[in-house]
């Protein structure tokens, strides 16, 4: 099949994946009309600092801009400040506000948004974290001295807890499971994460359910299922994210916890997807269908999706070894590959006792993942082995030869 003849490509989603798609389209020679639709009024900006340096007050808003050189060279129409609300695949139109735009190629990259608690009250002081405004609002609470209660001990909850402790605030973290991230990393590393936060003065309570969040004009406490309560002036609900696909309901695209794509990230002829909402079969892991909500995936997928769009029927599969990092206190946590807390895990370098170690994970005889604390070099070396589909024994042998 010959590459499609494209005259107007619309990228929907004004964050990292959408930006990388714009850049790749121009880099790879697309010269037609280009439009970016973004729900937020800002030009694309970087989100990882929103729970780290920006929330800590160590970085300003200007430093978040993803493209400091501006947009002139991309020759793109930036339609920012209103979300796309509808898509008609057959008619090739997308609705934004009162406008209807025609397109012949589309990149869908509307990301994800925080999952609310069931019955989450609309109280001042109850926060979620996704946007720069969310981070600013949380920062104001911390500045005012708020005692902070974080619901959910995943990466965002843990990073905000670490930043709030760094600003000298009292922090309680509530986790429903027996250890932080235990489903993802298993009980051994979960316990290391727990002790990291307790070492830094966090009141971490695990295995606890939230009954309700209460207060008058302002949040006052989180009531727990065991009858106790946490008194606080700020709550962060950080229990995961939901792909932002409501605007695609009825469009004809297959939706199933994200936008269902083929191996080359195509959702339909002339329509590709990238970033937090993209579900695709990943040949690096036996075509497991996955959806990944992390920075590196957004940047790699945005680039690849654009190339798939330009290649049409000749598009190549997106094959990737996921990479995630998290900065908490003075620890850089990095994870590569695909693994769960139930997989066999071996700590092969260093020791959890001083928060400097690397663990590797096994699936079907292969090394499928690695996770490190303050050992970037080692983790990245395993990323290559995972990409090369090395056996777990080969990874153990590498570890033994490189103590």
């Amino acid at each position, binding site marked *: 099949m010959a590459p499609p003849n494209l005259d107007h490509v619309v990228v929907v989603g004004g964050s990292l994946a959408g930006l990388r798609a714009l850049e790749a389209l121009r880099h790879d020679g697309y010269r037609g009309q280009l439009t970016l639709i973004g729900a937020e009024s800002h030009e694309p900006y970087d989100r990882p600092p929103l729970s780290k340096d920006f929330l800590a007050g160590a970085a300003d808003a200007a430093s978040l801009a993803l493209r400091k050189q501006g947009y002139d060279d991309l020759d793109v129409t930036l339609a920012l400040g209103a979300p796309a609300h509808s898509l008609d695949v057959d008619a090739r139109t997308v609705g934004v506000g009162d406008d209807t735009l025609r397109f012949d190629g589309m990149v869908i990259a509307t990301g994800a948004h925080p999952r609310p608690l069931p019955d989450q009250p609309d109280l001042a002081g109850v926060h979620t974290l996704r946007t720069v405004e969310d981070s600013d609002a949380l920062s104001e609470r911390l500045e005012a001295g708020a005692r902070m209660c974080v619901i959910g001990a995943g990466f965002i909850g843990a990073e905000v807890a670490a930043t709030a402790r760094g600003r000298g605030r009292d922090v309680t973290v509530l986790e429903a499971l027996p250890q932080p991230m235990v489903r993802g990393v298993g009980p051994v590393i979960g316990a290391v994460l727990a002790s990291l936060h307790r070492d830094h003065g966090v009141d971490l309570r695990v295995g606890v359910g939230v009954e309700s969040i209460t207060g008058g004009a302002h949040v006052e406490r989180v009531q727990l299922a065991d009858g106790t309560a946490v008194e606080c002036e700020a709550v962060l609900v950080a229990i995961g994210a939901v792909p932002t696909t409501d605007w695609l309901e009825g469009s004809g695209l297959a939706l199933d916890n994200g936008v269902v794509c083929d191996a080359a990230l195509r959702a339909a002829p002339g329509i590709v997807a990238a970033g937090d909402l993209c579900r695709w079969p990943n040949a690096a892991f036996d075509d497991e269908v996955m959806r990944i909500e992390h920075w590196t995936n957004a940047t790699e997928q945005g680039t690849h999706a654009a190339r798939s769009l330009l290649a049409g029927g000749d598009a190549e599969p997106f094959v990737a070894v996921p990479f995630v990092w998290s900065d908490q206190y003075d620890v850089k946590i*990095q994870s590569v590959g695909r693994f769960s807390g139930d997989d066999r895990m071996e700590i092969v370098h260093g020791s959890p006792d001083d928060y400097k170690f690397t663990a590797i994970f096994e699936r079907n005889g292969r090394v499928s993942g690695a996770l490190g604390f303050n050992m*970037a070099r080692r983790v*990245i070396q395993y990323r290559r082995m995972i990409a090369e589909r090395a056996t777990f024994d080969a990874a153990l042998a590498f570890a033994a030869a490189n103590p």
Partner: protein
Amino acid sequence: MKIVVDFDKCKSNAVCMAVAPDIFEVRDDNFLYVLQEEPGEERRGDVEEAIRTCPTGAISVEG
């Protein structure tokens, strides 16, 4: 093409090392070392990928 790293921005995530280990190396001291400051033109694709995937935007090129 000359590689420039802003070491104030670099946080040693080592993603560049995954892309091009013969050009970028994060050592056990957790610092990034640029092994080839002026790699050949045939490496431009890899260097561009390292620039694009650097979580802190610390890498750029001159020329």
